[in-house]
């Protein structure tokens, strides 16, 4: 056995002003699982970024799409999931567990932590296997299939239980600001993940979501945006509030600012999801709310950034020599840049140009590589020497990592900004006659290909720096040995009884009851009477709040709140639920009404099968299905999209990026033969296209025996299929497939098209897009033995220019 001198200061400072029981005890932290989480994060970080480099190469050089399992559409979700949930997830768990045990002075539950660690790694491995196989829910950052979702829920709740056990067993009464951010993370991710993944399974590996169309889109981006907020931001802010003071050896710049930062951030963030759906068919009021709350986010985000950076006041000279502080300072700066750019992109006029382009990719990588990646590096460079009782193996290598990483990010982001703005401008450029200057979409892709190579260079530089960090950390661990840390803790105080009478009769509680009563009355009264009462309630709330404050009754409220974990958690939950419910409920209610009156008929069985192939192949990663209300969009793609167009879509496929053209009104635009040839060899119909070949679809069969169960599941979710539709689903699908195959044979001498192939199903789906009803009617439903008029169906799809 050997001992090592810990580099951390051993001086104990009494900080809390709470009474403590006499005497004291000691706690010994083994930190085994924290070490495991650190190594898992480093390993998955390398894997996730390697996949990122591969998908970047695929965009620059399409032959890099090798085989059906390794196409861009299947690998891009693997890249995002690996980086978010595997790299940042494991890093977050390491940081949360390490800092929480120190701040709360309590030990982790061994069994729960072990289950959490191995469960999370098993989920990551499952994702790495299923996503390349095309098993996906088809929603960004929520691609994992339902059995894995269930596992995520169980493991996440285990993490939550473990964390709240720490709170329960803590020996430090006050909850430091980092703990607040962790509480918000645990609570909010639970709510988001469960709601967004509500689904009805039709098979062991497939399901249809509860929400459809615009409702699904809103819930998805409520989740997607807040996954960024509460998975990639709040826990990392907690880590910032703990590790930056530790590394700089000075307290956080302003504790007051941290209180305002926390409550403003968690209340505002939850509303901002609709800014991902600006200028779409989402109701205007929801778009306006999303934009407004995004703009308000500027203030708390920059408050947090300033608080983090100014914590280094008086220690700026250390930036020259300390790689940990270098990474933290740069990470927090990138946070400031990303949170400035986010609200900027939420302004409708800016979003008009930026949405669906690489500008967004540049923006998210500024946050992911700069904020998450550099904060992780700073934490690892500080933490690993602590965990192994030694010093960092090579400061020079860490410095090199910092500079090559920073340069890599700058190159990456610059390439994406140039690419995004170029493409956005080309999409809208008009010629002298008022038509599209670049009518062929592929022109706007080939123009930005050089930037895709530059992006690959920047990303690869960042990856090389990360690998150097991994080597440095391994060498650091090898130069030391795992340490046990013993800390002094005060003896627990006996719990004081809660004076419930006094609490319930207090001014704040009475004020809330009064305001709620007036608001309740407003709900049962009509028009102006109700509105007047709402205004009265708000006036009472404001004046009452000011009165209570003036009397200083609330002087110690937050102070007390910080000592009461359960109440604090409840308030955080209310704060995040209020925004979510207020935003989602009206949209969901409107959707229920719209489904009663829509003319849009559900997909035929073959179109549904084709749609599932479209989702499995990840087509949404490159193609949108949302024509925005701009002349240049209508000129290129057809009539502006409406909510009814996607009313039966589970999942919705509006997309978030256009590497290929929009497909919302693809039906009837080209003959089936064109689609067949395009899918087998995209460059045969679209010279210069970077789309991978999907020739494998021509030989992959659809299992029609499962089709009735799919329709039955959708019927349970409210899609108007009748019993006959379900019973005859397989034969209807075969009949429609035979019509398409005959068309291919007649129009293009394609003799070998397999009617049971996924490619034929995909063609059926593509030909349906943008139409109110299918062009196919089964023979049993025909009054006369003729097909439904193509012209009538085409007219419903609206006009459109060339591409």
């Amino acid at each position, binding site marked *: 056995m050997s001992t090592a001198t810990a580099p951390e200061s051993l001086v104990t400072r009494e900080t809390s002003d709470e009474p403590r029981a006499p005497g004291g005890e000691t706690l010994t932290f083994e930190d085994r699982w924290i070490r495991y989480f650190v190594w898992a994060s480093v390993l998955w970080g390398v894997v996730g970024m390697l996949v990122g480099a591969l998908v970047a190469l695929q965009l620059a050089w399409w032959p890099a799409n090798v085989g059906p399992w390794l196409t861009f559409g299947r690998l891009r979700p693997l890249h995002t999931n690996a980086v978010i949930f595997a790299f940042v997830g494991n890093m977050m768990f390491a940081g949360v567990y390490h800092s929480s045990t120190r701040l709360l002075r309590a030990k982790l539950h061994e069994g729960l932590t072990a289950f959490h660690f191995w469960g999370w790694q098993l989920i990551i491995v499952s994702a790495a296997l299923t996503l390349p196989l095309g098993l996906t829910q088809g929603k960004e950052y929520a691609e994992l299939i339902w059995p894995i979702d269930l596992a995520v829920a169980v493991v996440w709740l285990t993490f939550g239980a473990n964390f709240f056990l720490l709170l329960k067993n803590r020996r430090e009464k006050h909850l430091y600001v980092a703990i607040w951010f962790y509480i918000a993370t645990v609570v909010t991710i639970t709510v988001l993940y469960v709601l967004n993944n509500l689904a009805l399974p039709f098979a062991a590996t497939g399901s249809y979501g509860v929400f459809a169309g615009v409702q699904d889109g809103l819930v998805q981006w409520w989740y997607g945006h807040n996954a960024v907020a509460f998975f990639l931001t709040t826990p990392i802010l907690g880590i910032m509030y703990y590790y930056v003071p530790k590394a700089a050896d000075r307290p*956080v710049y302003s504790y007051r600012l941290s209180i305002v930062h926390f409550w403003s951030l968690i209340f505002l963030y939850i509303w901002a999801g609709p800014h991902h759906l600006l200028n779409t068919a989402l109701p205007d009021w929801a778009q306006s709310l999303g934009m407004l709350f995004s703009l308000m986010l500027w203030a708390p985000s920059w408050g947090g950034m300033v608080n983090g950076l100014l914590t280094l006041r008086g220690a700026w000279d250390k930036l020259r020599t300390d790689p940990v502080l270098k990474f933290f300072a740069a990470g927090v700066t990138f946070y400031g840049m990303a949170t400035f750019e986010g609200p900027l992109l939420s302004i409708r006029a800016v979003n008009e140009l930026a949405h669906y382009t690489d500008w967004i990719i540049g923006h998210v990588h500024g946050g992911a590589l700069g904020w998450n990646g550099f904060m992780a590096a700073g934490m690892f460079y500080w933490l690993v020497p602590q965990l192994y009782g030694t010093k960092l193996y090579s400061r020079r290598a860490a410095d090199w990592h910092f500079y090559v990483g920073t340069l890599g990010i700058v190159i990456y982001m610059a390439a994406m900004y140039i690419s995004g703005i170029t493409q956005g401008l080309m999409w809208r450029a008009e010629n002298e006659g008022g038509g599209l200057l670049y009518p062929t979409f592929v022109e706007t892709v080939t123009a930005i290909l050089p930037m895709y190579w530059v992006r690959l260079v920047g990303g690869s530089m960042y990856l090389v720096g990360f690998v150097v960090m991994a080597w440095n950390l391994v060498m650091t661990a090898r130069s030391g040995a795992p340490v046990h840390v013993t800390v002094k803790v005060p003896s627990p105080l006996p719990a004081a009884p809660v004076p419930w009478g006094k609490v319930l009769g207090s001014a704040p509680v009475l004020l809330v009851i009064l305001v709620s009563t007036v608001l309740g009355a407003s709900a049962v009264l009509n028009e102006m009477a109700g509105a007047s009462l709402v205004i009265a309630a708000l006036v009472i709330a404001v004046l009452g709040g000011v009165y209570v404050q003036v009397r200083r009754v609330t002087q110690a409220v937050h102070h007390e709140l910080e000592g009461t974990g359960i109440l604090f958690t409840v308030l955080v939950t209310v704060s995040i639920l209020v925004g979510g419910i207020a935003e989602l409920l009206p949209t969901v209610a409107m959707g229920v009404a719209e489904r009663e009156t829509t003319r849009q008929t559900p997909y035929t069985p073959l179109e549904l099968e084709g749609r599932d192939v479209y989702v499995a192949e990840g087509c949404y990663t490159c193609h949108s299905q949302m024509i925005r209300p701009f002349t240049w969009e209508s000129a290129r793609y057809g009539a502006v999209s409406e909510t009814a167009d996607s009313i039966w879509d589970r999942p919705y496929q509006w997309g978030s990026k256009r590497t290929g053209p929009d497909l919302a009104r693809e039906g009837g635009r080209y003959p089936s033969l064109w689609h067949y040839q395009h899918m087998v060899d995209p460059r045969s119909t679209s010279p210069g296209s970077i789309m991978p070949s999907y020739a494998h679809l021509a030989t992959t069969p659809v299992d029609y025996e499962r089709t009735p169960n799919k329709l039955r599941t959708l019927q349970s979710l409210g899609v108007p299929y009748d019993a006959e539709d379900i019973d005859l689903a397989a034969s209807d699908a075969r009949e429609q497939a035979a019509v398409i195959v005959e068309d291919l044979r007649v129009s293009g001498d394609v003799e070998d098209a397999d009617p049971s192939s996924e490619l034929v199903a995909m063609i059926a789906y593509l030909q349906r897009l943008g139409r109110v009803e299918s062009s196919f009617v089964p023979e049993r439903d025909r009054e006369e033995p003729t097909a439904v008029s193509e012209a009538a169906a085409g007219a419903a799809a609206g006009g459109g220019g060339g591409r």
Partner: protein
Amino acid sequence: MRAIAEPFFERSPLLLGPVFTLLLFFVVFLGVVLYVLRSKSLRFEALSNLPLSDGRSDSTNDPNDASGRTQEC
């Protein structure tokens, strides 16, 4: 006011929710700002020092994992 409100709430009375919640945010925000401005600095100073005083008293290498390894740099 009525001219603005009526067409807005015609779509759904549930739209009162977002409007009310927006105002609720401003009330809570003002309350939090007032609170932090009026609170005593000393209390915050003590709390902000919590990360710097994790009560560490000793650290030893893990006999099971260390395999007798010592610091090398």
